[in-house]
């Protein structure tokens, strides 16, 4: 061991394995510089330790208060092993209970043999029915519309006819009045002669 490899601080702080400690001690026996350096380190430690710890001004003590006490859930959450054990136990229980709690699967009927000819006939019949029904509905709609149009036309013609008759009647009345006026006038002329 030489001066550079001698860890005097570790030696002074008692952070050195015993075998290295023996080697360092042997080196110190023959090296004045390292002895002086170690002496400075020890004086430094002595100076630091001459300042003693102080007494605490007030003692610290806790009273039983539910506010500060950890709750059961805090204790449970803070306890890693216990929580792990509880999780494993719950998982095991779930695995064991699963077959008893799960309802049996519903039986799915096997698919019947497919009769394509019958299916086509059914489909054709259904289509025919639907088409006939649609045509009937369409014809009914058209008939209804035609009847409505005829009715409306009849009403319109009736109104026009009544209007014409009223106009003829008024013309006759006007004509009658004019004739009476003319007759009255001609009678007046004959009396004067």
């Amino acid at each position, binding site marked *: 061991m030489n001066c550079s490899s001698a860890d005097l*601080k570790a030696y002074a*702080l008692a*952070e050195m394995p015993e075998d290295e400690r023996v080697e360092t001690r042997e080196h110190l026996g023959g090296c004045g510089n390292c002895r002086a350096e170690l002496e*400075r*380190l*020890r*004086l*430094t*430690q*002595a*100076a*630091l*330790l*001459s*300042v003693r*710890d*102080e*007494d*605490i*001004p*007030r*003692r*610290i*003590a*806790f*009273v*039983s208060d539910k506010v*500060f*006490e*950890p709750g059961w859930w*805090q*204790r449970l959450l*803070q*306890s*890693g*092993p216990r929580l792990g054990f509880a999780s494993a136990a719950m998982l095991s229980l779930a695995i064991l209970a699963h077959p008893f709690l799960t309802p049996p699967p519903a039986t799915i009927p096997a698919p019947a043999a497919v009769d394509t000819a019958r299916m086509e006939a059914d489909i054709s019949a259904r289509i025919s029915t639907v088409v006939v029904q649609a045509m009937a509905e369409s014809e009914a709609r058209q008939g209804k519309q035609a009847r409505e149009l005829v009715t409306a036309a009849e009403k319109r013609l009736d109104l026009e006819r009544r209007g014409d008759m009223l106009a003829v009647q008024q013309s006759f009345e006007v004509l009658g009045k004019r004739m009476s006026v003319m007759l009255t006038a001609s009678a007046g002329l004959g009396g004067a002669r």
Partner: protein
Amino acid sequence: MEQARRGNVDSFNLLVSRWERRVFNYLLRLVANREDALDLSQEVFLKAYQNLGKLEDASRFAPWLYRIAHNEAFSLLRRQRPGAEEGVEPPPATPGPRLLPVETALAVQAALARLSADQREAVVLKIYQGFKFEEMAEILGCPVSTVKSRVYTALDSLKETLAPVGSKL
């Protein structure tokens, strides 16, 4: 410990009584304020009580507790000095021929304050709390090599000012 994990307050109070002085002094050396250190200590033990169920290995209680304390302290330091982790620079110590205890304390305080927050915490955990490098890595959440580097760098810095102080004790 097992009863405390089940929420037994009396058992937890027993744990508190064993650790409160050490935790308080650790926090005091980090935040350099008694009231803050006391408030933080109470927070640390309250969080420890509420989360004790998360601690799977009871033998790791100390690093686990100091990890909570570390988080609380650095959370406060970030709130107090956002973006600056360095301690307040005290006046340089000028040790005389023979130092009184108060002068030694001031010199140590000044030397520690010159370190970065990470280095100061590493020294506190190693020198004052006596943790091993592996435990410190667990508390600080960083590799052992980083812990070792912080402690060694801090010792090199402290040695310059505190070795003369130590020689006058």
